[in-house]
Structure formats: C-alpha cells, structure tokens
C-alpha cells in the first residue's frame, strides 16, 4: 500500500492506494499521525484506490479519526469502493466514519 498526502485550503487529503490490511494498517495510522502532527487536524482519507479493507484497516481508520478529533479536528473518508463500503456497513461503522463522494465534498459545508 502506498500513502501520500496533500494539504488543501481547509483540509489535508491522504491517499491510501492498495490493500488496507493488517500489514498496512499500522502504517496508515503512523502516516496520518504525522500529518496531524504537521499541523493538519481536518483530514480526508481518499479511498478511491483502496480496493480492499479488513477489520485491521477499519481499526486504523477509527484510530486516525480519534487522533484527528483529539487534535480538535475531524477525519472523513471519500470515494469509498464497494468492498470497503461492505465492510463499513456490516460492522455498522458507516455511522461513525462519514463517507463522501469525493475529497472536495468532505469539508465543503463546514
């Protein structure tokens, strides 16, 4: 899995391309923690190219959400693909991790 980020006007967009599994989950957590430490507390995780997520990956997203909120911000997810959507719904975590069609929309009404 490859991570990248870009600071936009009102948020930082993190891209996580590949499989978000027990191997990459700790790396996502570390990556987002660094982005928050760099001064961005409004995070959008763009999952457009995240073809797969398991419960470890879900746990990492929840950890990142908590870290962003502890820093006074929030974390939202965007461009969720079918397998990720399925895992979010089956675990009822779609109610906790707010999903938007695109990264641009995630904080557009704040």
């Amino acid at each position, binding site marked *: 899995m490859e991570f990248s980020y870009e600071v936009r006007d009102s948020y930082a967009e993190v891209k996580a391309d590949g*499989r978000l*599994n*027990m*191997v990459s989950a700790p790396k996502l957590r570390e990556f987002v923690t660094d982005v928050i430490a760099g001064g961005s507390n409004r995070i959008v995780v763009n999952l457009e190219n995240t073809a*797969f997520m*398991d*419960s*470890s990956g*879900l*746990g*990492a997203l*929840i*950890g990142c959400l*908590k870290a962003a909120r502890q820093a006074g911000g929030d974390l939202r997810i965007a461009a969720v693909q*079918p*397998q990720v959507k*399925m*895992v979010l719904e*089956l*675990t009822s*975590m779609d*109610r*906790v991790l707010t999903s938007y069609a695109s990264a641009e929309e995630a904080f557009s009404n704040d």
Partner: protein
Amino acid sequence: MTRVLASRSFRGLATEDAIESIHNHLDSLWLDAPFVQDMDQMTFTTAVIESASNIVQHAEPVGQDPVELGVDIEVRPTLLQARVSAYHAKPPFGPMEPGIPDEDAESGRGLALIEALVTTVTFERQDGTNTWVLTRSSQD
C-alpha cells in the same frame, strides 16, 4: 460431493508476508473462476483474509516449531469453501463467539465480520492444528 472447478492452496510461516501471498492467490483464483459473482468473490476474499490475519496476529506455537498458516480454497458449482489452518498452534485462547465492540474500539470486529460474510463457519482441532472451515453458498 460436487466437483471442484478451481482451487488454490498456500502453506507457509504465519507472518505478514503470508497475508499478501494469500490475497494474490485469491485474486488469481477469481480469474480462473469468473462465473463466481462479484459479491461472492468480495465477501469470500474478505472472510479468508480476516481468518488468516487472525492466525498471524493471535496464534501461539505449541512447541519449538513456529506456527504455520495453511489455506485451501475450493470453488464448487454452488459453493465456495476455505480451510484456514494454524499448524503447530495452541488451541485458540479467548472467546470464540464474536462480540460487539464499542463504536470507538480499534479492534475486536474480525469474528463478527467473518460470520456476517459467510454461510457457515466451523472450527476443528486435530493433532495441534486449528482449522476454521468457511463456506459460502453462491448466489445464483
């Protein structure tokens, strides 16, 4: 017993690398079995990876030998079956029943997710090997 239309097997040390290998095996299996619907491929892949990851994360060796992970997957006309095994492993520790963690918990959803994804989950222990057998009846 109906005939096997496609299959894959993996056996190796229960490490993180094994998870990526098993996922690659699953991806190539679906290329051999394109008649399996996308939803079945997606759910079964997720269940197998969850089960294998559970072994990598939690299985403890019973003796000197390290825990090995084995996955045998078969595609039959109306059934997907995977045997996910931990060799040289102690019996699983802790609850075998899935719990419902708090909303902000960062772990503990794997077992419930597996149960939601497949039709049956059974557990066998024999000669120091723990095996989870997952089946999913294909959607026709």
